[in-house]
């Protein structure tokens, strides 16, 4: 009688499915936990190169990926001292080797800086890493930007060593192509604004403005915001550089300010070298000149304060937004807009009188204010 043989393939399939399922079950329902791991095997760079058998770049990347777990560990431990290496920590040794194996790979420098400076506050080690990066890739904008940020923020060169920072930024500009130099200018502008009262966020809005198309509602909004910031700054500055008890503007005056009444010492202290483009004054061969405010209106002195009419106008609209929306609601219910301010008040909405010559305009769906044209051209922002 013929005896059936063992069916091997079904057994293989069943066992294979079982093993695959067992392996896959580790992933099902597993709680994601960050992987942490200590650093092991940190050969010196030359030894690592010798051991890499020509595959240094690939091995460096694999080692780098593996070291993410060590970064995770250091978030909590905050101590990467490695036995036998004196001052040099584990990250420093690791990135020293990784960079030697693949000096052209930018993430090594970026992560090296983040790990040493950002996580462990070893700024000197981070600086040495980034400098090696600039040695290897002298035209990499990202590395220059990172190094500049380190010098400005971690080493406070903007305050403590501005001359060297300036030289540094000039070197960066020299390393960039024609198109790339814009990055340096943007960085300088950004750096400058971090120390200018009221203008800390201006670089952000300038960037936003670059992304808008003139004439659009978004462009109008961003422009208005930029002008408002500049106006606020101008008010604060003019207040400081006004001549002491003499004052320099008649109260309520709209006339341009007369140069002899400037507190020159205060102005020199405000701008020791040159008057920046965002200043409310300018200086040329004929001396100091007062500019109009960013909206084109002359500055107004009110007691000890200086006021920007344009900023006032913008602020007025923001402050009356609630009442204007209320009128809009009433108009929707009644099927028509109010004829004038008196009727609006009669509807129960108390609208203030607009400043600086403006008058209410109820022709729009949302009540607006019609302002007179400013006597001067608004500042050019684009």
């Amino acid at each position, binding site marked *: 009688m013929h005896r059936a043989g063992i069916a091997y393939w079904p057994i293989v399939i069943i066992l294979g499915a079982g093993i695959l399922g067992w392996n896959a079950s580790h992933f099902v329902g597993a709680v994601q936990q960050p992987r942490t791991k200590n650093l092991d095997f940190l050969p010196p760079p030359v*030894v690592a190169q*010798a051991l890499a058998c*020509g*595959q240094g*770049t690939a091995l460096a990347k*694999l080692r780098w*990926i593996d070291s993410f777990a060590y970064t995770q560990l250091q978030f909590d431990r905050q101590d990467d001292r490695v036995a036998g290496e004196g001052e040099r920590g584990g990250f420093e040794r690791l990135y020293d080797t990784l960079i030697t194996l693949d000096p052209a790979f930018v993430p090594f420098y970026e992560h090296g800086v983040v790990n040493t400076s950002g996580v462990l506050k070893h700024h000197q080690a981070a600086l040495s890493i980034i400098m090696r990066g600039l040695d290897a890739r002298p035209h990499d904008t990202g590395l220059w930007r990172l190094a500049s940020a380190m010098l400005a923020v971690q080493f406070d060169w903007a305050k403590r060593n501005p001359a060297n920072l300036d030289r540094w930024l000039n070197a960066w500009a020299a390393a960039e192509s024609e198109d790339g130099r814009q990055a340096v200018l943007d960085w300088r502008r950004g750096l400058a604004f971090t120390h200018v009262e009221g203008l800390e966020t201006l670089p952000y809005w300038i960037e936003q403005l670059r992304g808008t198309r003139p004439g659009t509602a978004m462009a109008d909004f961003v422009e208005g915001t930029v002008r408002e910031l500049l106006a606020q700054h101008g008010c604060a500055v003019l207040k400081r550089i006004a001549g002491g008890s003499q004052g320099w503007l008649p109260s309520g005056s709209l006339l341009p300010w007369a140069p002899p009444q400037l507190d020159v010492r205060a102005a020199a202290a405000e701008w020791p070298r040159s008057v920046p483009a965002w200043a409310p004054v300018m200086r040329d061969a004929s001396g100091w000149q007062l500019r109009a405010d960013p909206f084109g209106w002359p500055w107004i002195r009110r007691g000890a304060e200086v006021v920007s009419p344009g900023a006032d106008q913008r602020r007025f609209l923001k402050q009356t937004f609630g009442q204007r929306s209320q009128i809009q609601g009433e108009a929707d219910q009644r099927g028509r807009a109010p004829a004038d301010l008196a009727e609006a008040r009669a509807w129960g909405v108390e609208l203030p009188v607009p400043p600086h010559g403006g008058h209410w305009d109820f022709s729009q769906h949302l009540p607006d204010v019609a302002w007179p044209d400013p006597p001067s051209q608004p500042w050019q922002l684009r």
Partner: protein
Amino acid sequence: MILIVAGATCREAVRSRAFLGLLLIFAVTALLTRVVGWVSATDGNIVALDLVMSLQSVIGVLVAVATGTVLVQSEIQQKTLYTVLSRPLPRWRFVIGKYLGLAAALIAGQLAMAVIGLAWVWITGASLNPWLLLAVGMTCLEVLVMAAVGICLSMLAGPLLSAVLCLAVYALGHAVATLPQLIDHLESWKRTLAVAAAALIPNLGYFTFRGQAIHGHGMTATDAAVSLGYAALWIALLLVVSIAVFRRKQL
């Protein structure tokens, strides 16, 4: 005559299961390197490209060592060359023909791996640059030199020992590039000894161009010519030694 032997050797090599198996291993592993690229925090395309090209190099060398060390030796042991060398074929032509056939097969393998690997990383988002082709070419030179090392060692030792020695030559050949730094602190006589020993090993650093190519950096024509000349010189030397030993071999 040489080309006749080379043709048969190439056909035999590319049809061998070991050769095709290693190509398959490369293809599967190349797919997985992409995952590593995705895992890396940034520049995953560079990571994947680097790993694929390293894999191509490593597998290429392994194939060269595995086939080079048994190319002639296995024929002697299995006596398959009895029916070949009993024909009007001088032994030197046999050795050169075998090497050329193996070289053709290895280059075909390298190109296949390059196409598979680079196409895969390109499809998954990496950008390629023409220098990568030169890097593939340099890897081919490295593989051809290792194949010649394998053949030469197999004339002097059995397949297993010659494969181990071949891999040692590969490791030392890359370490030689960093030797100046390693021996910097040694006494002069020790340094001389180290340099003399290193002179006996092919400096495989001449063919390591992958790292630069991946970042889009090029190689001058002079450097490329020097690498080519260096490879040709070593291959010629190793083949001459192989022929000299094989001529005296009793089969």
